[in-house]
């Protein structure tokens, strides 16, 4: 027996051929890595999207870096990232704990909580546009003056409306992640805590929160890096307006490239987006210490 397993070990050592990974690698290189290199290259060119691409040195970068709209887009992106994290993280953590318990009514609520996951961003944005309409929306229809404001037309309010709609759409997904995390906490920990007389709040802070460390890192990383991709929702909901008040970096990139036909400047904005995304992912991994994704990164 020992001889045969030894022999099989030796055969297994070879493992399957690397060619099995080739098709995936091919697609990924062609449509993700090549474009990634392409966005660097195009940021040093001049191109209107139709004609010839001409090398143009640093002029796109000069345009982008001196344009106050770029700074504004960065600020709007940072604000939305910050506020949507502050709003989403606690709500989805608490809802994850809430839905992970075994009561029947909580399971039923969870089924309904996850429905927004099914809607496209375009659908969510269109629904909220109708709902928030200052003339025909929910507020004026019900006769509630507070709700009847011009939510999307007021540049002081619109950012928070966007944060709210983002939370509405994405909290369900993070609730799901936390629910799974909580369910992996051994029940024996809670039993021991109960014997020690710990109350619910104490149990939450002493067991649930520390045990969810990796889940918190995963969810936060997805939340923060994901907030660089809130394009379609904001595009349909506000188009970046009023003025520039919700013009996020990805939206600014799209509008610069495909509406103002300045693909060079848009590519420079794309590079900025890539750099910010990578930096954020690295910082979050560091903050979390040795997390499981990091160990996967090294182990595999």
């Amino acid at each position, binding site marked *: 027996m020992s001889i045969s397993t030894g022999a099989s070990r030796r055969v*297994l050592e070879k493992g399957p051929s690397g060619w099995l990974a080739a098709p995936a690698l091919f697609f990924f290189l062609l449509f993700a890595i090549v474009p990634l290199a392409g966005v660097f290259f195009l940021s040093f060119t001049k191109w209107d999207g139709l004609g010839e691409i001409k090398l143009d040195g640093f002029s796109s970068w000069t345009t982008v870096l001196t344009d106050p709209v770029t700074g504004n887009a960065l600020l709007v992106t940072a604000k939305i990232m910050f506020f949507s994290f502050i709003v989403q993280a606690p709500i989805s953590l608490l809802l994850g704990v809430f839905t992970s318990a075994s009561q029947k009514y909580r399971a039923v609520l969870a089924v309904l909580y996850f429905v927004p996951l099914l809607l496209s961003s375009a659908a969510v944005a269109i*629904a909220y546009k109708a*709902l928030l309409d200052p003339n025909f929306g929910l507020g004026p229809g019900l006769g509630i003056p507070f709700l009847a404001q011009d939510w999307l037309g007021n540049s002081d309010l619109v950012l928070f409306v966007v944060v709210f709609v983002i939370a509405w759409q994405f909290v369900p997904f993070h609730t799901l992640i936390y*629910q799974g995390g909580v369910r992996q906490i051994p029940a024996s920990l*809670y039993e021991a805590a109960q014997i020690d007389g710990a109350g619910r709040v104490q149990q939450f802070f002493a067991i649930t929160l520390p045990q969810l460390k990796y889940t918190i890192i995963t969810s936060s990383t997805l939340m923060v890096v994901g907030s660089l991709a809130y394009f379609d929702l904001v595009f349909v909901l506000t188009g970046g307006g009023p003025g520039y008040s919700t013009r996020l970096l990805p939206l600014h990139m799209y509008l610069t490239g495909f509406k103002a036909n300045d693909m060079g400047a848009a590519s420079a904005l794309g590079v900025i987006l890539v750099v910010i*995304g990578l930096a954020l992912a690295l910082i979050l991994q560091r903050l979390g210490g040795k997390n499981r994704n990091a160990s996967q990164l090294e182990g595999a």
Partner: protein
Amino acid sequence: MASTTQLPVPPAVRVDPSRKPAQRSKGPGRSRPNFLGGLGGWLWLAIIIVPIYYVVVTSLKNQAGFFTSNPMMPPSEPTLDNYKLVLENDFAMYFVNSLLVTVGSVVPALLVSFMAAYAIVRGKTRFLGWTNRLFLLGLAIPLHATIIPIYWMITKAHLYDTLLALILPSIAFAIPISVLILSNFMRDVPNELFESMRLDGCSDWAMMWRLALPMTRPAVVTVGIYNALGVWNGFLFPLILTQSPSTRVLPLSLWTFQGEFSVNIPAVLASVVLATLPLLVIYVVARRQLISGLTAGFSK
């Protein structure tokens, strides 16, 4: 440590036996009903449900009813005219386009990701290690930053305004997360099973289909559903890579309906309902698979 074989068991069942005795035997901590938590849970339900309810109810009103009635009251004379109007405006064609793009992206993405995950987990070569690292890097990069080079490549390949233009980058963008989740599950397949099949003279190729695939089927289904959601609801690629109505997909059609019907808000909202309906049906049928799979995939 949820292993692959445990996955189909709904997590609630696993939690139950350990919690129930604890509730009976011990302490105020768990047995006291959590009023605050319950209140928060119902409050969030209201936040989730009100917009959905509003969309459905409004889509059943005629235009006059929409302007005059209470927005939260069901219509006095429900009508399906709005749905008829949407269906008459080529909705079926957009639906078929979405279906073609989704199936055309998800099936190849699953196939190549599965083969890559199998090779990465079972293989030992340095090439596979680097491939895996590259895919993990793809998770940290906001890939949407590369839309301009992708637009350039698609136009150069004369694929602009075709469904294939949407399919090819969608496959590539689905690969990193698919490989990550599939390889996480693949690692849980006991090595002994592979060894015994090897002793029976199985090739790596045969083991992939006859052992690895059946053992990771829940993960394959999960990844399939997750990617299908992403592609079905995708907005950015259709926006920049297609133009004519004959290649329009559903999320984009919602946006154009909004322009065409403009003030006919009930019809716009009917299109939102129609576009979400197929996913809702899938959710009702395969909810457990979707939820437990996503949970296990992300909180591992």
